[in-house]
């Protein structure tokens, strides 16, 4: 028995027989040819395997996205729509060249927002035009449409619809759709005529083919895996299967090679020539073709098992399709929700308007404004009026008016200053009574009535006796009294200051006397008298009873 071992590090030293064989040119030639054939087969098998892997991967991704969308649609209660949705998306994918995964994701956004497959279909159609026309990718466009459907129109700004920020904010969804349609209608179809559009369609067609082949491979390998179709035997079978298929491909290549050697096969009528039909190789090819047809048919039957049932058209005109009824119900619900949403938006708009009105009203209660308005109503100078108006304009943020008023105010102040200077420069007006002489008899009479000499009346002011009744004299007397009081006050202050300076540390005793007696004694005596005369006096200044002896 051979020894079991695991070579960890190995090295190729070359075969002895191989070295010997290399010595003979013919043998070497044969060896190289064999090597070439082996390499070709290996290379073909590897390529096939790589393509197969990619195909299975593409199929898996496609299936994953399909399952996700199916789940979403099912959760929305519209599972019956799934085949129609898939059919529609396949049609769009084939026509416009978008990947199935992208279309499904886009559609998912729309159906989640709208809740209706019909509406989602409409919007997806619109998004194809918008995407082609605006240059934004399909997913972004659908995201914006889905958001706009629920009132978030901010995303539509990038499409330059000619709307202001405020207009965009209050834009209704139907209006947004109209705007977008007007701007981008037909852009999707037009793009298909461009080179880029055509390339996209062709690429998607190739990808679709790969996905279909991938699906077929997965089915085939699952079948090869046998009972249970589990992954592990499937993985093991994959290797054998790929080898089997690669051998088959090499076999076909050999067959074609032999076919080329058939006389006349290179000509245009080769396939109908007699030699072709009677040749054993071509006969084998015809049988192989029949076999392949049969295999393909079997595979197709496996892939698409019969749907069964009858088409709705076969059930007569009175038949009501339950799917259609459900669809109508969903559409009605959607419209209802849309109306409710519109009503809510209107409500919000009204509330905003009310809020604005309240803000405006609150301005009228502004105390500063009230003060300005009140001041403006009073009898004020031109400069003050302009100042107030300017302040008001500043509060209202009215720049134009504020500038005007500021200019006016400046001009007024300038004018006032000029007037003041003019008044100051005006010479003093002469006293018109300067040269008047008081008649002697009037002077004597006044002096006699006042009880003073005539010289005193002329030279010095005198205190008018209180019996004087003239208002002017009374005023004069009051002024003189005030001046006298002022003088006395000044004298008192000076005296206090001098006293304070001399006795700064000694306490000041103030004795209040009434009619030569201390006030406390007077009050006590008064209360005692009142008590004796019958009036009730319960307490005196010191808290004693009236009959208590007073010791002051």
């Amino acid at each position, binding site marked *: 028995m051979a*020894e*079991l071992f695991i*070579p960890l590090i190995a*090295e190729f030293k070359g075969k002895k027989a191989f070295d010997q064989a290399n010595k003979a040119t013919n043998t070497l030639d044969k060896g190289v040819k064999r090597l070439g054939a082996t390499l070709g087969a290996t290379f073909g098998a590897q390529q096939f395997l790589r393509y197969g892997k990619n195909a299975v991967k593409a199929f898996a991704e496609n299936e994953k996205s399909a399952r996700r969308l199916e789940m979403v649609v099912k959760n929305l209660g519209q599972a019956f729509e799934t085949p129609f949705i898939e059919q529609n998306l396949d049609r769009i994918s084939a026509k416009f060249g978008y990947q199935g995964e992208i279309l499904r994701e886009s559609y998912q956004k729309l159906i989640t927002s709208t809740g209706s497959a019909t509406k989602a279909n409409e919007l997806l159609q619109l998004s194809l035009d918008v995407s082609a026309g605006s240059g934004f990718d399909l997913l972004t466009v659908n995201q914006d449409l889905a958001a706009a459907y629920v009132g978030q129109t901010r995303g539509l700004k990038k499409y330059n619809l000619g709307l202001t920020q405020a207009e965009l904010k209050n834009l209704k969804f139907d209006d947004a759709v109209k705007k977008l349609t007007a701007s981008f209608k037909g852009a999707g179809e037009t793009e298909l005529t461009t080179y880029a559009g055509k390339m996209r369609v062709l690429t998607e067609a190739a990808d679709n083919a790969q996905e279909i082949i991938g699906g077929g491979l997965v089915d085939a390998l699952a079948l090869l895996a046998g009972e249970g179709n589990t992954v592990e035997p499937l993985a093991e079978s994959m290797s054998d299967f790929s080898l089997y298929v690669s051998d088959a491909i090499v076999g076909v290549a050999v067959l074609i090679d032999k076919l080329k050697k058939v006389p006349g096969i290179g000509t245009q009528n080769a396939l109908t020539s007699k030699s072709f039909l009677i040749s054993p190789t071509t006969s084998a090819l015809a049988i192989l073709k029949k076999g392949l047809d049969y295999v393909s048919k079997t595979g197709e039957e496996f892939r698409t098992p019969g749907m069964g049932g009858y088409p709705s058209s076969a059930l007569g005109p009175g038949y009501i399709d339950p799917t259609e009824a459900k669809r109508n119900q969903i559409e009605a619900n959607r419209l209802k929700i849309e109306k409710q949403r519109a009503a809510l938006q209107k409500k919000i708009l009204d509330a905003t308007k009310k809020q604005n009105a309240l803000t405006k009203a609150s301005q009228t209660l502004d105390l500063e404004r009230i003060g300005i308005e009140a001041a403006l109503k009073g009898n004020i100078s031109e400069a003050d009026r302009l100042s107030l108006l300017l302040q008001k304009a500043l509060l209202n943020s009215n720049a134009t008016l504020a500038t005007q008023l500021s200019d006016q105010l400046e001009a007024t102040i300038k004018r006032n200053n000029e007037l003041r200077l003019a008044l100051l420069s005006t010479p003093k007006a002469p006293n018109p009574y300067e040269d008047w002489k008081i008649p002697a008899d009037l002077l004597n009479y006044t002096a006699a009535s006042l009880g003073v000499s005539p010289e005193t009346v002329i030279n010095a002011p005198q205190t008018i006796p209180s019996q004087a009744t003239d208002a002017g004299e009374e005023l004069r007397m009051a002024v003189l009294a005030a001046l006298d009081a002022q003088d006395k006050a000044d004298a008192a202050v000076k005296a206090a200051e001098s006293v304070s300076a001399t006795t700064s540390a000694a306490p000041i005793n103030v004795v209040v006397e009434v009619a030569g007696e201390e006030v406390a004694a007077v009050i006590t005596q008064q209360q005692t008298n009142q008590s004796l005369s019958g009036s009730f006096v319960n307490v005196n200044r010191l808290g004693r009873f009236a009959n208590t002896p007073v010791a002051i």
Partner: protein
Amino acid sequence: MPTELRGANHLRKALKQYAPDLAKETREEMIGFLKPLVKKARGFMPSNDAMPSGFVGTAEDGRFPKYDAALARRGVGYKLTPTKPNRQGWISTVSIHNKTAGGAIYETAGRKSGITGNFTPRLQGTLAGRAKMSGRAMFKAYEQDQGKARAGVMKALEKAGAKFNARGNFNG
């Protein structure tokens, strides 16, 4: 699967001849990676009690081989010298082996025909690894090692090569 490291044999010959200290150091480093692997593989070899009674004993010439736990464990080891080229022209510079017949039977029984019949279901342990690299002891240990030993040995050889070249005297 083995990894081809071209010139490994020449390197080791050169080391042995011109830098014996480096050769020894490299060898010890490689052993450091191989010993745990061998120890683990020996650990998967069951005791005699755990084997079918008819299979345990001392092998006689011309008879079906028998299993002796001690011998089987001793039969698992490593090899640092190059083997003879096989029919495809490959030599292995560093390898681990399971030499005894009894140990090899325990290692591979059921690998081709499945765990069926009267013998293989009674063997302890499970087959680990894939296809021709599957087994119960050595291959299992190698599978669980996840190529760490192989990488370590390669690194040791590469390091030795670099050091050898760095010494400069041998580059011509």
